[in-house]
């Protein structure tokens, strides 16, 4: 980013972010992941302007029609265009993935920072709660929270986000423990900086890389979790489309209209694959041990 904003002539030294970007660009599978993710993000963003049918418009003359020229991906049990529902559903899925991870990072990273930086009983308290939450299976925790909050897409996002918090607490804590013994942290204390300044400007920036990788990988998990919650009726509510709820309906028509299940299934598979490949690529690119 700095390379774009500064108008300096060709730099001889390579800034670390440039090096990471270069490595990412030469990594085929990461590129593939990036293309998939970018594709879904673009169609999700472009949903309102794409020349597609209204995802909620029913048609009694086109119930459970196989893919055709009029309906490229076919229609569902009440004649809605599946292509249109897939595209609008991408919005729900991606939004759920990104927003829930955002919540998880926003809550988890500060707790991890505090836990790792201060240590002592603060660390004990935070770590024990984290351990307890991690002992509960991710999806079970999300289902319990979503059921408690009530069924809606927003609540599903909150539930998934909170369920993913312990992952980030633990990851951040571990990274902070490694970074806080660095000489520059001692140096920051030696010039009288406050704990807040040291945590915010000396430790956080130096633990961000693994958090970014974990966040990307967790988006994939969160998308599956959202689909699962929607499948169980705890996420996106009818008639608004989401891949999970489309699968839920499709399971009743597996023999009569299998395409109803193909597309959302394939989309979930692809987007999760994309985020995983991208995350793995980021991990390799940001790993300082490899050159």
């Amino acid at each position, binding site marked *: 980013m700095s390379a774009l904003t500064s108008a300096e002539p060709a730099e001889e030294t390579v800034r670390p972010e440039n090096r990471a970007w270069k490595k990412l660009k030469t990594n085929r599978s990461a590129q593939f992941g990036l293309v998939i993710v970018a594709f879904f993000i673009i169609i999700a963003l472009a949903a309102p302007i794409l020349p597609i049918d209204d995802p909620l418009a029913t048609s009694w003359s086109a119930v459970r029609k196989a893919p055709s020229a009029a309906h490229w991906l076919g229609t569902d049990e009440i004649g809605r265009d599946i292509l249109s529902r897939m595209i609008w559903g991408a919005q729900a899925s991606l939004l759920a993935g990104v927003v829930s991870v955002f919540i998880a990072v926003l809550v988890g990273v500060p707790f991890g920072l505090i836990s790792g930086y201060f240590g002592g009983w603060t660390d004990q308290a935070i770590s024990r709660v984290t351990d307890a939450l991690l002992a509960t299976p991710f999806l079970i925790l999300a289902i319990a929270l979503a059921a408690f909050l009530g069924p809606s897409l927003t609540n599903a996002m909150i539930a998934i986000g909170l369920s993913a918090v312990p992952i980030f607490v633990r990851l951040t804590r571990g990274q902070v423990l490694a970074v806080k013994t660095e000489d520059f942290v001692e140096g920051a*204390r030696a010039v009288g900086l406050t704990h807040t300044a040291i945590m915010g400007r000396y430790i956080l*920036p130096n633990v961000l890389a693994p958090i970014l990788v974990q966040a990307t990988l967790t988006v994939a998990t969160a998308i599956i979790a959202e689909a699962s919650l929607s499948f169980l009726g705890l996420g996106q509510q009818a008639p608004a489309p989401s891949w999970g709820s489309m699968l839920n309906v499709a399971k009743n028509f597996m023999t009569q209209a299998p395409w109803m299940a193909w597309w959302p299934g394939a989309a979930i598979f692809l987007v999760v694959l994309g985020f995983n490949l991208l995350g793995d690529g980021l991990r390799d690119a940001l790993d300082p041990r490899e050159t």
Partner: protein
Amino acid sequence: MSKAIDLNAAPVLSVENLALRFKGAPANIIDGISFAVRPGETLCIVGESGCGKSVTALSLMGLLPRSVAQVMSGTAMFGDHDLLELSQRAMADLRGNTISMIFQEPMTSLNPSYRIGDQIAEVVLRHKSVTRAEARQRALQMLDRVKIPAASSRLDDYPHELSGGMRQRVMIAMALANDPAVLIADEPTTALDVTIQAQIIDLIEELQKETGTALVMITHDLGVVAEIADRVCVMYAGHMVEDGPVEAIFDDPQHPYTIGLMSSVPSVGPRSGRLAAIGGMVPAIDNMPSGCRFTPRCPFAQTNCAVSQPPLDELGPSHRAACHYAPLETVFPEAVFQEAGS
């Protein structure tokens, strides 16, 4: 050494009988440390690795957690404050402001994800009521003063874009950005190339002359000591064994450890025989003699040395040594003394 130091001036930092003990340790890690520095004066604390030099510095900076390193006795008067008594918060207000420290490892002592100009400016912003622009201006001025070429274009560099010597210059710029009254330098040149070492030492000396900062230099490099020290304080295994003006320490060392230290310095030119070394090893903390800690290695040791702790006796003008038998040549007239130094 012809620096204009007012010998009657009150010391800016005066440490009296400092003793620290790590929690659970059987003996004090440092004991009976006393020294004072006046404005513009350079005090070198010398001793081998593990003798407590860095612990002394870190405890003065308040950088050792008090739950781990307990102050057993002593005071460290800095102006009207006893540094050992100040709260963490008050200590943090002093650090980087009126008392600063330079570390040993310039390669790792700067935040890798933070531009150096911002790092220096942050220290100014933390302690002075200035605007961001003024702090940045100050950072630029400091980079200039530590002789970083093309300082204005270096301001936005990340630490990894600088060499070790340059990074140490940045560290010095940070430490001096607020014109501290006392600068503690903990082996600032150990990690650098020999040629760079000389430049950094010259730079520190020059800046000290300009600012009148009192300098406490921790080192085990006697060449550095000879070059910049006004006074020297020799430590061995946590005890102060000798202190005095640099000339006295080099020309007329009194404590057997100092004598051994001086004769183990290699010098340019022919030498007859092998380089002298002090035999034996520093005793472990759980195996310290209750008297003089140098006893097991001392060629002059007598039976009472291991049991009674010798006081720091005045032997010459502001020259003290902690040895029961100092001056040695009057007590052991038959002993042959190797010519100290070169």
